[in-house]
Protein backbone atom coordinates (compact mmCIF):
# COMPACT_ATOMS: atom_id res chain seq x y z
CA UNK A 1 0.00 0.00 0.00
CA UNK A 2 2.74 2.40 0.99
CA UNK A 3 4.67 1.76 -2.18
CA UNK A 4 1.63 2.24 -4.38
CA UNK A 5 0.92 5.54 -2.66
CA UNK A 6 4.50 6.61 -3.07
CA UNK A 7 4.30 5.71 -6.73
CA UNK A 8 1.15 7.74 -7.22
CA UNK A 9 2.73 10.67 -5.43
CA UNK A 10 5.86 10.54 -7.54
CA UNK A 11 3.91 10.34 -10.77
CA UNK A 12 1.85 13.36 -9.77
CA UNK A 13 4.99 15.23 -8.79
CA UNK A 14 6.56 14.40 -12.13
CA UNK A 15 3.53 15.72 -14.00
CA UNK A 16 3.58 18.89 -11.94
CA UNK A 17 7.28 19.36 -12.51
CA UNK A 18 6.74 18.87 -16.22
CA UNK A 19 4.12 21.58 -16.19
CA UNK A 20 6.29 23.96 -14.22
CA UNK A 21 8.94 24.15 -16.92
CA UNK A 22 6.75 26.22 -19.22
CA UNK A 23 5.39 28.50 -16.52
CA UNK A 24 5.97 32.22 -16.66
CA UNK A 25 8.54 33.32 -14.14
CA UNK A 26 7.41 34.12 -10.64
CA UNK A 27 6.29 37.74 -10.33
CA UNK A 28 6.46 38.51 -14.03
CA UNK A 29 4.14 41.50 -14.69
CA UNK A 30 3.81 40.40 -18.30
CA UNK A 31 2.49 36.97 -17.35
CA UNK A 32 -0.78 36.29 -19.15
CA UNK A 33 -2.60 35.94 -15.86
CA UNK A 34 -2.03 39.62 -15.19
CA UNK A 35 -2.92 40.88 -18.64
CA UNK A 36 -6.32 39.70 -19.74
CA UNK A 37 -9.09 39.94 -17.18
CA UNK A 38 -7.34 41.34 -14.13
CA UNK A 39 -6.46 44.85 -15.39
CA UNK A 40 -10.09 45.86 -15.52
CA UNK A 41 -10.53 44.88 -11.89
CA UNK A 42 -7.49 46.89 -10.99
CA UNK A 43 -8.28 49.98 -13.02
CA UNK A 44 -12.01 50.27 -12.85
CA UNK A 45 -12.93 48.93 -9.45
CA UNK A 46 -13.39 52.32 -7.91
CA UNK A 47 -15.23 53.72 -10.85
CA UNK A 48 -17.58 50.79 -11.32
CA UNK A 49 -18.31 49.67 -7.81
CA UNK A 50 -17.20 52.49 -5.57
CA UNK A 51 -15.06 50.46 -3.22
CA UNK A 52 -11.34 50.65 -2.76
CA UNK A 53 -10.52 47.07 -1.85
CA UNK A 54 -10.32 45.26 -5.15
CA UNK A 55 -10.56 41.90 -3.50
CA UNK A 56 -13.87 42.89 -1.99
CA UNK A 57 -15.17 44.31 -5.22
CA UNK A 58 -14.30 41.22 -7.19
CA UNK A 59 -15.55 38.98 -4.41
CA UNK A 60 -18.83 40.72 -3.87
CA UNK A 61 -19.61 42.25 -7.18
CA UNK A 62 -17.81 41.00 -10.28
CA UNK A 63 -17.79 37.43 -9.05
CA UNK A 64 -20.49 37.86 -6.45
CA UNK A 65 -22.15 34.67 -7.51
CA UNK A 66 -19.08 32.63 -6.56
CA UNK A 67 -19.37 34.08 -3.11
CA UNK A 68 -22.98 33.02 -2.91
CA UNK A 69 -21.68 29.57 -3.76
CA UNK A 70 -19.06 29.89 -1.06
CA UNK A 71 -21.67 30.84 1.51
CA UNK A 72 -23.72 27.90 0.37
CA UNK A 73 -20.74 25.63 0.91
CA UNK A 74 -20.43 26.87 4.47
CA UNK A 75 -24.14 26.42 4.97
CA UNK A 76 -23.85 22.90 3.56
CA UNK A 77 -21.09 22.12 6.02
CA UNK A 78 -23.21 23.41 8.87
CA UNK A 79 -26.26 21.37 7.91
CA UNK A 80 -24.06 18.33 7.24
CA UNK A 81 -22.61 18.49 10.72
CA UNK A 82 -26.10 18.86 12.16
CA UNK A 83 -27.22 15.90 10.07
CA UNK A 84 -24.30 13.77 11.16
CA UNK A 85 -23.87 14.66 14.81
CA UNK A 86 -27.01 16.13 16.30
CA UNK A 87 -28.84 13.84 18.64
CA UNK A 88 -32.52 13.63 19.15
CA UNK A 89 -33.69 16.55 21.20
CA UNK A 90 -34.93 15.57 24.59
CA UNK A 91 -38.16 17.54 24.35
Amino acid sequence: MKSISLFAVLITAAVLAYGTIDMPDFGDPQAPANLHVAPRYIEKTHEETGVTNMVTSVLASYRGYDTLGETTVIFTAGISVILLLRRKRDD
Partner: protein
Amino acid sequence: MNISQHFPVMIVIIPLISAVIIPLIGRIRRIYGWYVSIAATFSSFLISISLLMTVFEKGRISYWLGNWEPPWGIEYVVDYLSGFVLVVISFIAFIITVYSIKSVGKEIPEHRITPFYSIYMLFVAGLLGMIITGDIFNLYVFIEISSLAGYALIAAGRKRDALIASYNYLILGTIAATFILLGIGYLYMVTGTLNMADLRERLPLLYDSKVVRTAFAFFTVGLSIKIALFPLHIWLPNAYTHAPSVVGALQAATATKVGVYAMIRIMFTVFKPQFILEVVPVSQIFLFLSAVAIIAGSVLAIGQRDIRRMLAYSSIGQIGYIVLGIALANKSSIIGSLIHILNHALMKGGLFLVVGAVVYKTGITDIDDFKGLGKRMPFSMAAFTIGALSMVGVPLTVGFVSKWYLALGALQAGMWVFVPVILISSLLSAVYFWRVINNIYFKDDGVPARIDDAPAGMLMPAFTLAACCIIFGIAAFIPVYITGFAAEMLLRG
Protein backbone atom coordinates in the same frame (compact mmCIF):
# COMPACT_ATOMS: atom_id res chain seq x y z
CA MET B 1 -39.78 42.35 -14.95
CA ASN B 2 -39.83 39.51 -17.39
CA ILE B 3 -39.29 36.45 -15.28
CA SER B 4 -38.42 34.12 -18.13
CA GLN B 5 -35.20 35.97 -18.88
CA HIS B 6 -34.02 34.98 -15.41
CA PHE B 7 -34.74 31.30 -15.82
CA PRO B 8 -31.08 30.30 -16.13
CA VAL B 9 -30.35 31.55 -12.64
CA MET B 10 -33.72 30.61 -11.19
CA ILE B 11 -33.18 26.93 -11.94
CA VAL B 12 -30.29 26.92 -9.45
CA ILE B 13 -31.55 29.53 -7.01
CA ILE B 14 -34.91 27.87 -6.42
CA PRO B 15 -33.48 24.63 -5.01
CA LEU B 16 -30.83 26.61 -3.19
CA ILE B 17 -33.32 28.88 -1.44
CA SER B 18 -35.56 25.95 -0.70
CA ALA B 19 -32.59 24.23 0.95
CA VAL B 20 -32.16 27.26 3.14
CA ILE B 21 -35.84 27.49 3.98
CA ILE B 22 -36.28 23.81 4.82
CA PRO B 23 -34.52 23.96 8.23
CA LEU B 24 -36.79 26.87 9.18
CA ILE B 25 -40.02 25.48 7.87
CA GLY B 26 -39.22 21.91 8.88
CA ARG B 27 -39.50 22.97 12.48
CA ILE B 28 -43.21 23.56 12.10
CA ARG B 29 -43.85 20.14 10.66
CA ARG B 30 -41.36 17.70 9.25
CA ILE B 31 -43.41 16.91 6.20
CA TYR B 32 -43.16 20.50 4.98
CA GLY B 33 -39.54 19.92 4.08
CA TRP B 34 -40.67 17.30 1.64
CA TYR B 35 -43.35 19.54 0.18
CA VAL B 36 -40.86 22.32 -0.37
CA SER B 37 -38.44 19.89 -2.03
CA ILE B 38 -41.10 18.64 -4.40
CA ALA B 39 -42.15 22.15 -5.30
CA ALA B 40 -38.56 23.23 -5.88
CA THR B 41 -37.51 20.27 -8.00
CA PHE B 42 -40.71 20.42 -9.97
CA SER B 43 -40.27 24.08 -10.78
CA SER B 44 -36.66 23.41 -11.73
CA PHE B 45 -37.88 20.72 -14.06
CA LEU B 46 -40.42 23.01 -15.69
CA ILE B 47 -37.83 25.74 -16.04
CA SER B 48 -35.36 23.33 -17.61
CA ILE B 49 -37.92 22.35 -20.24
CA SER B 50 -38.66 25.98 -20.96
CA LEU B 51 -34.93 26.66 -21.28
CA LEU B 52 -34.42 23.79 -23.69
CA MET B 53 -37.30 25.03 -25.81
CA THR B 54 -35.88 28.53 -25.81
CA VAL B 55 -32.55 27.15 -26.96
CA PHE B 56 -34.25 25.49 -29.88
CA GLU B 57 -36.03 28.71 -30.75
CA LYS B 58 -33.31 31.25 -30.29
CA GLY B 59 -30.05 29.40 -29.87
CA ARG B 60 -27.54 29.64 -27.05
CA ILE B 61 -28.69 31.52 -23.97
CA SER B 62 -26.10 33.50 -22.04
CA TYR B 63 -27.01 34.98 -18.67
CA TRP B 64 -24.64 37.48 -17.11
CA LEU B 65 -24.74 37.29 -13.36
CA GLY B 66 -24.64 40.75 -11.85
CA ASN B 67 -24.76 41.99 -15.44
CA TRP B 68 -20.96 41.92 -15.70
CA GLU B 69 -20.05 40.87 -19.16
CA PRO B 70 -17.94 37.73 -19.40
CA PRO B 71 -15.01 37.12 -19.03
CA TRP B 72 -15.09 39.62 -16.14
CA GLY B 73 -18.24 38.34 -14.59
CA ILE B 74 -19.69 34.89 -14.30
CA GLU B 75 -21.73 33.64 -17.20
CA TYR B 76 -24.49 31.07 -17.25
CA VAL B 77 -24.80 29.22 -20.52
CA VAL B 78 -27.64 27.12 -21.81
CA ASP B 79 -27.03 25.42 -25.10
CA TYR B 80 -28.23 22.17 -26.61
CA LEU B 81 -25.93 20.13 -24.40
CA SER B 82 -26.56 21.78 -21.06
CA GLY B 83 -30.25 22.17 -21.84
CA PHE B 84 -30.57 18.47 -22.47
CA VAL B 85 -28.65 17.44 -19.37
CA LEU B 86 -30.59 19.95 -17.25
CA VAL B 87 -33.86 18.39 -18.29
CA VAL B 88 -32.62 14.90 -17.55
CA ILE B 89 -31.18 15.70 -14.14
CA SER B 90 -34.01 17.91 -12.93
CA PHE B 91 -36.53 15.33 -14.06
CA ILE B 92 -34.78 12.52 -12.20
CA ALA B 93 -34.37 14.72 -9.14
CA PHE B 94 -38.07 15.50 -9.18
CA ILE B 95 -39.09 11.86 -9.54
CA ILE B 96 -36.79 10.71 -6.76
CA THR B 97 -38.02 13.49 -4.49
CA VAL B 98 -41.59 12.37 -4.99
CA TYR B 99 -40.54 8.84 -4.20
CA SER B 100 -38.40 9.68 -1.22
CA ILE B 101 -40.65 10.32 1.76
CA LYS B 102 -41.60 6.77 2.74
CA SER B 103 -38.15 5.37 2.25
CA VAL B 104 -36.51 8.27 4.07
CA GLY B 105 -38.94 7.89 6.94
CA LYS B 106 -37.89 4.29 7.31
CA GLU B 107 -34.14 4.47 6.76
CA ILE B 108 -33.23 7.79 8.34
CA PRO B 109 -33.72 8.64 12.01
CA GLU B 110 -36.65 10.94 12.46
CA HIS B 111 -34.80 13.95 13.83
CA ARG B 112 -32.46 13.94 10.84
CA ILE B 113 -35.17 14.16 8.20
CA THR B 114 -35.32 17.94 8.05
CA PRO B 115 -31.56 18.46 7.59
CA PHE B 116 -31.61 15.54 5.20
CA TYR B 117 -33.98 17.31 2.85
CA SER B 118 -32.02 20.50 3.18
CA ILE B 119 -28.82 18.74 2.13
CA TYR B 120 -30.74 16.92 -0.55
CA MET B 121 -31.78 20.18 -2.13
CA LEU B 122 -28.25 21.55 -1.83
CA PHE B 123 -27.05 18.49 -3.69
CA VAL B 124 -29.56 19.10 -6.46
CA ALA B 125 -28.69 22.80 -6.58
CA GLY B 126 -25.00 21.92 -6.81
CA LEU B 127 -25.57 19.54 -9.71
CA LEU B 128 -27.76 21.97 -11.61
CA GLY B 129 -25.20 24.71 -11.04
CA MET B 130 -22.45 22.48 -12.40
CA ILE B 131 -24.45 21.88 -15.53
CA ILE B 132 -25.44 25.41 -16.33
CA THR B 133 -22.33 27.36 -15.49
CA GLY B 134 -20.05 28.77 -18.15
CA ASP B 135 -17.19 29.62 -15.83
CA ILE B 136 -14.67 27.04 -14.71
CA PHE B 137 -14.13 28.39 -11.24
CA ASN B 138 -17.86 28.55 -10.67
CA LEU B 139 -17.90 24.95 -11.82
CA TYR B 140 -15.46 24.12 -9.04
CA VAL B 141 -17.62 25.86 -6.44
CA PHE B 142 -20.68 23.90 -7.48
CA ILE B 143 -18.73 20.66 -7.65
CA GLU B 144 -17.84 21.25 -4.04
CA ILE B 145 -21.42 22.05 -3.02
CA SER B 146 -22.71 18.88 -4.58
CA SER B 147 -19.79 16.79 -3.29
CA LEU B 148 -20.06 17.98 0.30
CA ALA B 149 -23.78 17.42 0.23
CA GLY B 150 -23.15 14.03 -1.32
CA TYR B 151 -20.80 12.93 1.47
CA ALA B 152 -23.31 13.90 4.09
CA LEU B 153 -26.19 12.21 2.26
CA ILE B 154 -24.34 8.91 2.03
CA ALA B 155 -23.68 8.93 5.76
CA ALA B 156 -27.22 9.97 6.64
CA GLY B 157 -28.60 6.52 7.29
CA ARG B 158 -28.28 4.22 10.26
CA LYS B 159 -25.66 1.85 8.88
CA ARG B 160 -22.15 2.23 10.20
CA ASP B 161 -20.57 0.92 6.98
CA ALA B 162 -21.95 4.00 5.29
CA LEU B 163 -19.77 6.20 7.47
CA ILE B 164 -16.50 4.74 6.32
CA ALA B 165 -17.75 4.61 2.73
CA SER B 166 -18.61 8.27 2.95
CA TYR B 167 -15.27 9.09 4.50
CA ASN B 168 -13.33 7.36 1.76
CA TYR B 169 -15.45 9.12 -0.82
CA LEU B 170 -14.68 12.38 0.93
CA ILE B 171 -10.93 11.82 0.79
CA LEU B 172 -10.96 10.80 -2.87
CA GLY B 173 -13.50 13.44 -3.75
CA THR B 174 -11.36 16.12 -2.15
CA ILE B 175 -8.30 14.93 -4.04
CA ALA B 176 -10.37 15.09 -7.21
CA ALA B 177 -11.73 18.54 -6.48
CA THR B 178 -8.29 19.85 -5.57
CA PHE B 179 -6.87 18.48 -8.80
CA ILE B 180 -9.60 20.29 -10.66
CA LEU B 181 -8.80 23.46 -8.73
CA LEU B 182 -5.17 23.03 -9.68
CA GLY B 183 -6.11 22.56 -13.33
CA ILE B 184 -8.15 25.76 -13.18
CA GLY B 185 -5.15 27.56 -11.72
CA TYR B 186 -2.87 26.32 -14.47
CA LEU B 187 -5.26 27.39 -17.17
CA TYR B 188 -5.73 30.76 -15.55
CA MET B 189 -1.99 31.20 -15.26
CA VAL B 190 -1.41 31.00 -18.99
CA THR B 191 -4.62 32.52 -20.29
CA GLY B 192 -5.68 35.02 -17.66
CA THR B 193 -9.32 34.05 -17.92
CA LEU B 194 -11.81 31.73 -16.27
CA ASN B 195 -14.65 31.91 -18.76
CA MET B 196 -15.13 28.73 -20.76
CA ALA B 197 -15.97 30.41 -24.05
CA ASP B 198 -13.05 32.78 -23.64
CA LEU B 199 -10.71 29.92 -22.82
CA ARG B 200 -11.84 28.14 -25.94
CA GLU B 201 -10.69 31.07 -28.02
CA ARG B 202 -7.42 31.63 -26.25
CA LEU B 203 -6.27 28.07 -25.73
CA PRO B 204 -5.55 26.87 -29.29
CA LEU B 205 -2.47 29.10 -29.44
CA LEU B 206 -1.19 27.47 -26.29
CA TYR B 207 -1.84 23.83 -27.12
CA ASP B 208 1.86 23.14 -27.09
CA SER B 209 2.38 24.66 -23.68
CA LYS B 210 3.32 22.13 -21.04
CA VAL B 211 1.24 24.08 -18.55
CA VAL B 212 -1.91 23.57 -20.59
CA ARG B 213 -1.22 19.90 -20.97
CA THR B 214 -0.64 19.50 -17.27
CA ALA B 215 -3.87 21.37 -16.60
CA PHE B 216 -5.69 19.03 -18.92
CA ALA B 217 -4.18 16.04 -17.19
CA PHE B 218 -5.36 17.26 -13.79
CA PHE B 219 -8.84 18.03 -15.05
CA THR B 220 -9.25 14.60 -16.52
CA VAL B 221 -7.84 12.73 -13.55
CA GLY B 222 -9.95 14.78 -11.16
CA LEU B 223 -13.13 14.27 -13.13
CA SER B 224 -12.31 10.61 -13.67
CA ILE B 225 -12.32 10.13 -9.92
CA LYS B 226 -15.63 11.96 -9.70
CA ILE B 227 -17.24 9.78 -12.35
CA ALA B 228 -15.57 6.62 -11.02
CA LEU B 229 -13.86 5.68 -14.24
CA PHE B 230 -12.06 2.39 -13.84
CA PRO B 231 -9.54 2.09 -12.07
CA LEU B 232 -10.43 5.18 -10.05
CA HIS B 233 -13.77 3.73 -9.09
CA ILE B 234 -12.90 2.31 -5.68
CA TRP B 235 -15.06 4.71 -3.71
CA LEU B 236 -18.22 4.00 -5.65
CA PRO B 237 -19.37 0.45 -4.79
CA ASN B 238 -19.29 1.00 -1.03
CA ALA B 239 -20.88 4.39 -1.28
CA TYR B 240 -23.82 3.16 -3.34
CA THR B 241 -24.23 -0.02 -1.36
CA HIS B 242 -24.39 1.44 2.11
CA ALA B 243 -26.10 4.74 1.41
CA PRO B 244 -29.81 5.05 2.16
CA SER B 245 -31.84 3.83 -0.81
CA VAL B 246 -33.00 7.25 -1.90
CA VAL B 247 -29.45 8.56 -1.80
CA GLY B 248 -28.18 5.56 -3.73
CA ALA B 249 -30.76 6.20 -6.40
CA LEU B 250 -30.05 9.90 -6.54
CA GLN B 251 -26.28 9.50 -6.62
CA ALA B 252 -26.33 6.72 -9.17
CA ALA B 253 -28.76 8.46 -11.44
CA THR B 254 -27.41 11.98 -11.31
CA ALA B 255 -24.01 12.58 -9.72
CA THR B 256 -21.80 10.59 -12.05
CA LYS B 257 -23.81 11.80 -15.05
CA VAL B 258 -23.13 15.38 -14.19
CA GLY B 259 -19.47 14.49 -13.70
CA VAL B 260 -19.39 13.09 -17.20
CA TYR B 261 -21.13 16.19 -18.43
CA ALA B 262 -18.40 18.32 -16.86
CA MET B 263 -15.84 16.14 -18.58
CA ILE B 264 -17.52 16.69 -21.93
CA ARG B 265 -17.55 20.42 -21.25
CA ILE B 266 -13.84 20.47 -20.50
CA MET B 267 -12.87 18.25 -23.40
CA PHE B 268 -15.07 19.73 -26.09
CA THR B 269 -15.98 23.26 -25.16
CA VAL B 270 -13.00 24.46 -23.16
CA PHE B 271 -10.58 22.53 -25.29
CA LYS B 272 -11.47 21.75 -28.85
CA PRO B 273 -12.02 18.21 -30.09
CA GLN B 274 -8.79 18.38 -32.05
CA PHE B 275 -6.88 18.72 -28.78
CA ILE B 276 -7.82 15.29 -27.52
CA LEU B 277 -7.69 13.73 -30.96
CA GLU B 278 -4.58 15.23 -32.52
CA VAL B 279 -2.53 17.39 -30.21
CA VAL B 280 -2.32 15.05 -27.25
CA PRO B 281 -3.90 11.75 -28.19
CA VAL B 282 -5.49 11.15 -24.79
CA SER B 283 -8.55 9.83 -26.55
CA GLN B 284 -6.58 6.63 -27.10
CA ILE B 285 -6.03 6.25 -23.38
CA PHE B 286 -9.67 6.89 -22.70
CA LEU B 287 -10.73 4.37 -25.31
CA PHE B 288 -8.63 1.75 -23.65
CA LEU B 289 -9.74 2.66 -20.13
CA SER B 290 -13.38 2.75 -21.07
CA ALA B 291 -13.21 -0.65 -22.75
CA VAL B 292 -11.59 -2.06 -19.62
CA ALA B 293 -14.22 -0.33 -17.47
CA ILE B 294 -17.06 -1.75 -19.54
CA ILE B 295 -15.84 -5.30 -19.27
CA ALA B 296 -14.47 -5.11 -15.72
CA GLY B 297 -17.59 -3.44 -14.35
CA SER B 298 -19.81 -6.10 -15.85
CA VAL B 299 -17.59 -8.99 -14.76
CA LEU B 300 -17.34 -7.68 -11.21
CA ALA B 301 -21.09 -7.18 -11.11
CA ILE B 302 -21.64 -10.86 -11.84
CA GLY B 303 -19.89 -11.92 -8.66
CA GLN B 304 -21.88 -9.74 -6.26
CA ARG B 305 -24.40 -10.99 -3.73
CA ASP B 306 -25.78 -7.65 -2.64
CA ILE B 307 -28.07 -6.24 -5.27
CA ARG B 308 -27.02 -2.66 -4.68
CA ARG B 309 -23.37 -3.55 -5.00
CA MET B 310 -24.20 -5.33 -8.22
CA LEU B 311 -25.92 -2.24 -9.53
CA ALA B 312 -22.97 -0.14 -8.41
CA TYR B 313 -20.49 -2.24 -10.36
CA SER B 314 -22.81 -2.19 -13.30
CA SER B 315 -22.71 1.61 -13.04
CA ILE B 316 -18.96 1.48 -13.42
CA GLY B 317 -19.43 -0.43 -16.65
CA GLN B 318 -22.07 1.99 -17.85
CA ILE B 319 -19.80 4.94 -17.18
CA GLY B 320 -17.34 3.17 -19.44
CA TYR B 321 -19.89 3.30 -22.25
CA ILE B 322 -20.38 7.00 -21.87
CA VAL B 323 -16.66 7.69 -21.80
CA LEU B 324 -16.17 5.41 -24.79
CA GLY B 325 -18.55 7.53 -26.82
CA ILE B 326 -16.81 10.71 -25.76
CA ALA B 327 -13.38 9.35 -26.60
CA LEU B 328 -14.46 8.17 -30.04
CA ALA B 329 -15.45 11.77 -30.65
CA ASN B 330 -17.65 11.57 -33.70
CA LYS B 331 -21.26 12.54 -34.10
CA SER B 332 -22.83 9.13 -33.70
CA SER B 333 -20.71 8.19 -30.74
CA ILE B 334 -21.45 11.42 -28.91
CA ILE B 335 -25.15 11.00 -29.57
CA GLY B 336 -24.72 7.53 -28.11
CA SER B 337 -22.97 8.91 -25.05
CA LEU B 338 -25.53 11.59 -24.41
CA ILE B 339 -28.43 9.20 -24.85
CA HIS B 340 -26.66 6.82 -22.55
CA ILE B 341 -26.54 9.57 -19.95
CA LEU B 342 -30.30 9.81 -20.25
CA ASN B 343 -30.68 6.08 -20.42
CA HIS B 344 -28.50 5.31 -17.45
CA ALA B 345 -30.12 8.02 -15.38
CA LEU B 346 -33.55 6.58 -16.13
CA MET B 347 -32.85 2.90 -15.72
CA LYS B 348 -30.35 3.02 -12.89
CA GLY B 349 -32.59 5.46 -11.09
CA GLY B 350 -35.53 3.16 -11.65
CA LEU B 351 -33.64 0.06 -10.54
CA PHE B 352 -32.42 1.71 -7.36
CA LEU B 353 -35.92 2.95 -6.63
CA VAL B 354 -37.27 -0.57 -6.91
CA VAL B 355 -34.50 -1.87 -4.70
CA GLY B 356 -35.42 0.88 -2.27
CA ALA B 357 -39.02 -0.29 -2.33
CA VAL B 358 -37.89 -3.85 -1.63
CA VAL B 359 -35.75 -2.66 1.26
CA TYR B 360 -38.68 -0.63 2.53
CA LYS B 361 -40.99 -3.62 2.46
CA THR B 362 -38.71 -6.51 3.36
CA GLY B 363 -35.28 -5.19 4.29
CA ILE B 364 -33.51 -7.68 2.03
CA THR B 365 -30.73 -6.76 -0.32
CA ASP B 366 -29.15 -10.15 -0.92
CA ILE B 367 -29.95 -11.46 -4.39
CA ASP B 368 -30.37 -14.98 -3.03
CA ASP B 369 -33.23 -13.76 -0.85
CA PHE B 370 -35.17 -12.39 -3.79
CA LYS B 371 -36.67 -15.78 -4.51
CA GLY B 372 -40.35 -15.57 -5.25
CA LEU B 373 -40.51 -11.81 -4.93
CA GLY B 374 -42.26 -11.66 -8.29
CA LYS B 375 -45.38 -13.05 -6.68
CA ARG B 376 -45.29 -10.80 -3.64
CA MET B 377 -44.37 -7.52 -5.29
CA PRO B 378 -45.46 -7.98 -8.91
CA PHE B 379 -45.59 -4.32 -9.88
CA SER B 380 -42.24 -3.39 -8.40
CA MET B 381 -40.64 -6.35 -10.08
CA ALA B 382 -42.22 -5.46 -13.40
CA ALA B 383 -40.54 -2.06 -13.19
CA PHE B 384 -37.30 -3.76 -12.25
CA THR B 385 -37.54 -6.05 -15.24
CA ILE B 386 -38.05 -3.17 -17.61
CA GLY B 387 -35.04 -1.40 -16.18
CA ALA B 388 -32.97 -4.55 -16.49
CA LEU B 389 -34.03 -5.03 -20.10
CA SER B 390 -33.02 -1.51 -20.88
CA MET B 391 -29.71 -2.09 -19.17
CA VAL B 392 -29.06 -5.13 -21.32
CA GLY B 393 -29.97 -3.10 -24.37
CA VAL B 394 -32.96 -5.01 -25.64
CA PRO B 395 -34.53 -3.32 -28.67
CA LEU B 396 -37.46 -1.01 -27.96
CA THR B 397 -35.81 0.22 -24.80
CA VAL B 398 -33.68 3.30 -24.67
CA GLY B 399 -30.66 1.17 -23.78
CA PHE B 400 -30.71 -0.25 -27.27
CA VAL B 401 -30.72 3.16 -28.85
CA SER B 402 -27.65 4.36 -27.01
CA LYS B 403 -25.68 1.18 -27.63
CA TRP B 404 -26.66 1.26 -31.27
CA TYR B 405 -25.29 4.75 -31.68
CA LEU B 406 -22.15 3.94 -29.73
CA ALA B 407 -21.50 0.98 -31.99
CA LEU B 408 -22.19 3.11 -35.06
CA GLY B 409 -19.73 5.64 -33.76
CA ALA B 410 -17.11 2.96 -33.19
CA LEU B 411 -17.46 1.76 -36.77
CA GLN B 412 -17.36 5.27 -38.14
CA ALA B 413 -14.18 5.92 -36.24
CA GLY B 414 -12.75 2.76 -37.76
CA MET B 415 -12.52 1.13 -34.33
CA TRP B 416 -14.66 -1.88 -34.98
CA VAL B 417 -13.07 -3.75 -32.04
CA PHE B 418 -15.34 -1.82 -29.69
CA VAL B 419 -18.45 -3.30 -31.24
CA PRO B 420 -17.71 -6.75 -29.79
CA VAL B 421 -16.83 -5.07 -26.50
CA ILE B 422 -20.29 -3.53 -26.39
CA LEU B 423 -21.93 -6.79 -27.36
CA ILE B 424 -20.00 -8.86 -24.87
CA SER B 425 -20.79 -6.53 -22.04
CA SER B 426 -24.44 -6.59 -23.03
CA LEU B 427 -24.27 -10.33 -22.68
CA LEU B 428 -22.53 -10.04 -19.34
CA SER B 429 -25.18 -7.65 -18.09
CA ALA B 430 -27.80 -10.09 -19.31
CA VAL B 431 -26.05 -12.68 -17.17
CA TYR B 432 -26.06 -10.68 -13.96
CA PHE B 433 -29.58 -9.45 -14.37
CA TRP B 434 -30.71 -12.91 -15.27
CA ARG B 435 -29.67 -14.16 -11.86
CA VAL B 436 -31.99 -11.65 -10.26
CA ILE B 437 -34.88 -12.12 -12.67
CA ASN B 438 -34.63 -15.86 -12.35
CA ASN B 439 -34.83 -15.62 -8.58
CA ILE B 440 -37.69 -13.20 -8.74
CA TYR B 441 -39.94 -15.09 -11.10
CA PHE B 442 -38.90 -18.69 -11.27
CA LYS B 443 -38.06 -19.61 -7.70
CA ASP B 444 -40.67 -20.04 -5.07
CA ASP B 445 -39.39 -20.09 -1.54
CA GLY B 446 -37.95 -17.24 0.43
CA VAL B 447 -40.02 -14.14 0.80
CA PRO B 448 -42.71 -14.48 3.45
CA ALA B 449 -46.28 -14.41 2.19
CA ARG B 450 -47.32 -11.43 4.29
CA ILE B 451 -45.21 -9.12 2.14
CA ASP B 452 -47.30 -7.15 -0.31
CA ASP B 453 -46.38 -4.63 -2.96
CA ALA B 454 -44.87 -1.23 -2.25
CA PRO B 455 -47.17 1.76 -1.69
CA ALA B 456 -48.29 3.76 -4.70
CA GLY B 457 -46.10 6.67 -3.72
CA MET B 458 -43.06 4.50 -4.38
CA LEU B 459 -44.44 2.54 -7.31
CA MET B 460 -45.50 5.49 -9.40
CA PRO B 461 -42.05 7.10 -9.60
CA ALA B 462 -40.40 3.79 -10.37
CA PHE B 463 -42.94 3.14 -13.08
CA THR B 464 -42.54 6.60 -14.50
CA LEU B 465 -38.85 5.96 -15.00
CA ALA B 466 -39.47 2.50 -16.43
CA ALA B 467 -42.08 3.91 -18.76
CA CYS B 468 -39.64 6.56 -19.91
CA CYS B 469 -37.14 3.81 -20.72
CA ILE B 470 -39.67 2.35 -23.11
CA ILE B 471 -41.12 5.58 -24.45
CA PHE B 472 -37.72 6.90 -25.40
CA GLY B 473 -36.79 3.48 -26.71
CA ILE B 474 -39.68 3.49 -29.15
CA ALA B 475 -39.89 7.19 -29.87
CA ALA B 476 -36.13 7.32 -30.05
CA PHE B 477 -36.16 10.19 -32.47
CA ILE B 478 -36.83 12.64 -29.63
CA PRO B 479 -33.53 12.18 -27.73
CA VAL B 480 -31.69 11.54 -30.98
CA TYR B 481 -32.93 14.80 -32.39
CA ILE B 482 -31.93 16.82 -29.36
CA THR B 483 -28.57 15.18 -28.81
CA GLY B 484 -27.85 15.39 -32.52
CA PHE B 485 -27.76 19.17 -32.20
CA ALA B 486 -25.64 18.90 -29.07
CA ALA B 487 -23.17 16.58 -30.78
CA GLU B 488 -22.85 18.87 -33.77
CA MET B 489 -22.26 21.80 -31.49
CA LEU B 490 -19.55 19.94 -29.60
CA LEU B 491 -17.72 18.83 -32.70
CA ARG B 492 -17.65 22.22 -34.31
CA GLY B 493 -13.92 22.85 -34.39
